[in-house]
């Protein structure tokens, strides 16, 4: 992780945000083609891997948003959704935001009206 990366945590959400030196189109391939996913994601396509986490692509809006159903056998009841949002930046760069959290995340509402440190960090 470089100092540029921002990692935020709510009690049931992990967020990683950073700028990528790649276009949304290039990122899109890395996020949706299985050969690339198997390289960086360190998880198996659903139903194949018996050990370790598995993913299934459930939502894909070209160049802006992908959503994976996530299953980790060590944490079967943990938040099941990984969402990646892409935002085009000048000069062929992309703002990248990964959120691992509950399905219908209301976290941003909470985050917007509290200045407290995240619960999990403070408790």
């Amino acid at each position, binding site marked *: 992780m470089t100092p540029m990366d921002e990692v935020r*945590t709510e009690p049931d959400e992990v967020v990683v945000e950073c700028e990528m030196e790649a276009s949304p189109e290039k990122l899109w391939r890395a996020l949706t083609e299985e050969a690339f996913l198997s390289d960086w994601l360190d998880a198996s396509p659903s139903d194949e891997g018996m050990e370790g986490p598995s993913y299934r692509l459930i939502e894909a809006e070209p160049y802006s948003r992908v959503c994976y159903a996530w299953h980790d056998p060590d944490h079967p009841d943990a938040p099941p959704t990984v969402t990646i949002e892409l935002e085009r930046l000048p000069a062929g760069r992309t703002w990248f935001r990964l959120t691992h959290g509950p399905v219908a995340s209301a976290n941003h509402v909470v985050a917007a009206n509290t200045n407290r440190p995240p619960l*999990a960090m403070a408790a």
Partner: protein
Amino acid sequence: MNESDVFRALADPTRRAVLERLLDGEKNATELREGLGISQPAVSQHVAVLRSAGLIAEKKNGRHVHYSLAPDGLAPVFDWLTRYRAFWPARVERLKTLLKEMDQ
């Protein structure tokens, strides 16, 4: 208490607000309700869910009930957070490397 109950309890923003209020220390039902903008019965319902998930403890003091955070209540969540707070930044680093290796 199990991991599923804890995550379900945390999924509700009001219940998270209740827990946050208890970070400052124990509170009675009236103090807990202040600033939440919901009725006392609604607070009681949320408190019941949080209690059954093992996230808050209650202590009776005469006619008053005081609520506090249960010390180990968030342990299942910490296990998950510990894993994924390390996992995702490492994956994103690998993705950056992959992007450099990919053809345009």
